[in-house]
C-alpha cells in the first residue's frame, strides 16, 4: 500500500525523459557515420550511468509508474513523431516497423515466460507460422487482410496445441527440450517441404485494409510519405492493443494466479488453483501474439524463407525478454529497441552481432539477472483503483 501513502510524483520527469529519448532516437536513426553512432552510444551509456548515480532515473521511473497511462500515451506519441520526422526515409521507417513487430512478439513471450514461467524456445517458429499463414492466405484466397492477421495468430496458437500436452506435463529442462525439439522440427520441416516453398521460401502480398493498399506510398494532399508509415500505424495499433491486453491480464486475478503458478506450483495447487489452466492460457495467448506479429511482418517484407525462423532467432527473442526483465512489459519494449536497432545502425556490429548478443546475455545473466528494467513488485491495486 506504499503507493497510496506516498505522495504522487509529478509527471514532468517522465515526460522529459520521453522527449529526450525521442530526440536521441532521431539523432541515432539519422546518424550516418559509424563514428557518430559510436559517439551517441557511448554518450548514452555515460549519461545513463551519471543519471543513475544522481538518482534521477529513480524519479523518472516513479513518475512514469504513477502516471502509467500518460507515460504510455507519450511514448506512442513520440513513436508517431519519430516516424513522421523520417516520413520518406524507407530504411529508417522499416527499422521502426520491425522494432514494433518484434515488440509484439516479445510481449507474447513475456506472457508465457514472465507471467507463468512457461519457457518457449520456439518463439521464432510460432512467428514463422504467422508468416506462412499470411503468405498462403494472401496468395490463394481472398480473405480480408485484417482477418488474415487474426488468422495468423490463430494458426500459431493452434499449432501450439501440438506441444501443449508435453509442455504441461514436463518441467524445467524437460520442458525446454520440448520447445527446442519443436523449433528444430519446424525449421527442418519448412526446409524440406516443397509445398511451402522449401528453402527458397514464399512470396507474400502486401497488406490491404478496407481498400487501402498499404504497400503504396502514402499521399495525402501535398504530403508524400513512405508506405512503411502505413505498416508502422498498423503495427503500433497492434502493439498498443497487445500491451493493454497484457497489462490488463497482469492486473487481473488471472495474472495473480499466473504469478502464483510461476513462483510455486505446489503451493498454488494446494490453494486450489488450476496449474494447467494458467499455463494453457498464457502459452496460447503468447503464441497468438507471435502469430499476429509474424503475419504482419510477412506482409511487410513481401518475402519469407525458413532462414528467418531458426533456433538462433528464437534464442534472440528469448534473450530480449530476459534482457528487458522477466515479466516487465516496458522492459521488453526497451530491450527490443536496443537489440534490433543497434546492429542495424552500427554496421561494424552486423557481422559480430550473434557473438555480441550471446556475450551480452551471458554478462547480464551473470551480473544483473533481473534484466534492465526489472518487473516491479505487485502493488495489489488494480489500474482502476490507483
Amino acid at each position, binding site marked *: 500500500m506504499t503507493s497510496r501513502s506516498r505522495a504522487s510524483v509529478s509527471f514532468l520527469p517522465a515526460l522529459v525523459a520521453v522527449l529526450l529519448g525521442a530526440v536521441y532516437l532521431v539523432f541515432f536513426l539519422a546518424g550516418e557515420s559509424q563514428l557518430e553512432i559510436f559517439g551517441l552510444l557511448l554518450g548514452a551509456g555515460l549519461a545513463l550511468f551519471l543519471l543513475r548515480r544522481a538518482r534521477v532515473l529513480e524519479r523518472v521511473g516513479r513518475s512514469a509508474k504513477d502516471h502509467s497511462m500518460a507515460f504510455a500515451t507519450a511514448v506512442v506519441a513520440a513513436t508517431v513523431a519519430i516516424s513522421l520526422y523520417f516520413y520518406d526515409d524507407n530504411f529508417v521507417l522499416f527499422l521502426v516497423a520491425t522494432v514494433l513487430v518484434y515488440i509484439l512478439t516479445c510481449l507474447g513471450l513475456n506472457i508465457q515466460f514472465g507471467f507463468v514461467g512457461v*519457457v518457449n524456445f520456439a518463439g521464432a517458429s510460432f512467428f514463422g507460422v504467422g508468416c506462412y499463414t499470411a503468405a498462403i492466405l494472401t496468395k490463394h484466397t481472398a480473405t480480408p487482410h485484417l482477418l488474415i492477421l487474426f488468422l495468423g495468430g490463430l494458426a500459431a496458437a493452434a499449432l501450439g496445441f*501440438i*506441444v501443449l*500436452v*508435453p509442455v504441461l*506435463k*514436463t*518441467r*524445467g*529442462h*524437460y520442458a*525446454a*527440450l*520440448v520447445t*527446442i*525439439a*519443436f523449433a*528444430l*522440427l519446424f525449421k*527442418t*520441416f519448412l*526446409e*524440406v517441404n516443397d509445398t511451402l516453398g522449401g528453402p527458397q521460401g514464399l512470396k507474400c502480398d502486401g497488406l490491404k485494409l478496407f481498400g487501402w493498399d498499404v504497400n503504396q506510398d502514402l499521399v495525402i494532399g501535398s504530403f508524400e510519405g513512405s508506405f512503411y508509415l502505413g505498416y508502422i500505424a498498423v503495427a503500433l495499433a497492434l502493439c498498443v492493443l497487445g500491451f493493454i491486453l497484457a497489462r490488463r491480464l497482469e492486473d487481473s486475478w488471472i495474472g495473480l494466479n499466473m504469478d502464483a503458478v510461476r513462483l510455486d506450483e*505446489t503451493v498454488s495447487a494446494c490453494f486450489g488453483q488450476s496449474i494447467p489452466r494458467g499455463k494453457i492460457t498464457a502459452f496460447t495467448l503468447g503464441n497468438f501474439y507471435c502469430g499476429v506479429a509474424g503475419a504482419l511482418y510477412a506482409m511487410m517484407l513481401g518475402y519469407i524463407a525458413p532462414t528467418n525462423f531458426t*533456433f*538462433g532467432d528464437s*534464442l534472440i527473442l*528469448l*534473450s530480449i525478454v*530476459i534482457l528487458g526483465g522477466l515479466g516487465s512489459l516496458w522492459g521488453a519494449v526497451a530491450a527490443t529497441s536496443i537489440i534490433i536497432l543497434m546492429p542495424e545502425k552500427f554496421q561494424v556490429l552486423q*557481422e*559480430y552481432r*550473434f*557473438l555480441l*548478443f*550471446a*556475450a551480452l*546475455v*551471458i554478462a547480464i*545473466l*551473470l551480473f544483473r*539477472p533481473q534484466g534492465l528494467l526489472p518487473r516491479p513488485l505487485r502493488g495489489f491495486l488494480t489500474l482502476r483503483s490507483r
Partner: protein
Amino acid sequence: MDIGLIGQHIANGLMMGLIYALVAVGFTLFFGVLDVIKFSHGDVLTWGVFSAFSMYLLLSWMGFEHPVLILVIVAIVSMAFIAVLGGVIAKVLIIPLKGAPPLNVLLITLMLGTVLRESIRLFYPDGANPKHFPALLPDWSHSWGNFTLRFDNTVMLISGLLMIVLVQLIIKRTKLGMAIRAVSQDEETARLMGINFNLVVYITFALGSALAAFAGVTYGLYYNELSFNMGLLLGAIGFSAAAVGGFGNIYGAIVGGFLFAMLQTIGAAALPFASAYKDVFAFGVVIVIMAIKPTGLLGEKETERV
C-alpha cells in the same frame, strides 16, 4: 526391401547412435554431478573437431605421413584440449552459477554455445565454409549383396563402445568415480567426507567434454566434413537423447542415443515420405515420448519430492 539394405541402414544407424550416445553421456554426466544442463556441449564438440583438424593440418605441414599415427595423435590432442576447455567452462561459468535458476543456466550455456560457434565462424581462417575432414583410417571394405561392411566404421564403432565402457568403468570402479557419484548424490555430505567438490566438478566436465571431442572426431571421420554449425544439431540431439533416456542415468543416455538414431533411420528408410523428413520424424517422436514419459524412459535418478 532386402536384407542387405536393412543391414546397411542398421549399420549406419548404429554409427550415428554411437555418436549421439557419446554426446548424451556428456550431458548426463554434467547433470548427474551438478544438476545443470550445459547446452554448449554440441559447440564444444565442434571445437573438438576443429582442433583435431588444425592438429592434422599442423602434422601434415610438419611432414608426418602415417595416417593412423596422425589419427591417434590428433584424437588424443583434441581430447586433451577439449577436456581443458570443459574444465575452464566449469570453473568460469558453471560453478559460479550453482544456485541460479535452472533456466538461467540453460540460457547462459546456450549463449556460450553461440559464442563458441560464432568465434569459429568469425575467427577461424575461412571458418564460415565447410571443410573436408581427411579420411585417416584405411578404406578396406567387404560387400555381401547390398551390405557393405567398412573397416573404418567398424573400428570407430568398436573404439566408441570401448570409450563408453571406459567411462562406465571410471565411474563405477575407481576412487574418482566414487567421488563423482558421492557428489552427485549429496554435495554437502561429499564435502564433509573430504571430497574436493570443485575438483570433482572440473574433472567431470573435462571427462564429458573429452567424450564430446571423441564423438566429434568420429563424426568427422564418418562424414568427412566439418563446419562451424555442426554442433548445434548434434548438441540438440544429444540433449534430446539424454532427456528421452532420463537425465542423470548413463544407460538412459546410451539408450536415448541409439533410439534417436534408430528413429532417424526409420524416418529415412521405412516411412513413405521423403527421407528429408527424418529429423522432423525423430524430433516429433521425442515430443510424443516426453508427453507420455515426462522424465524420460528410464526415469531420473531420483524422484522429486513434491
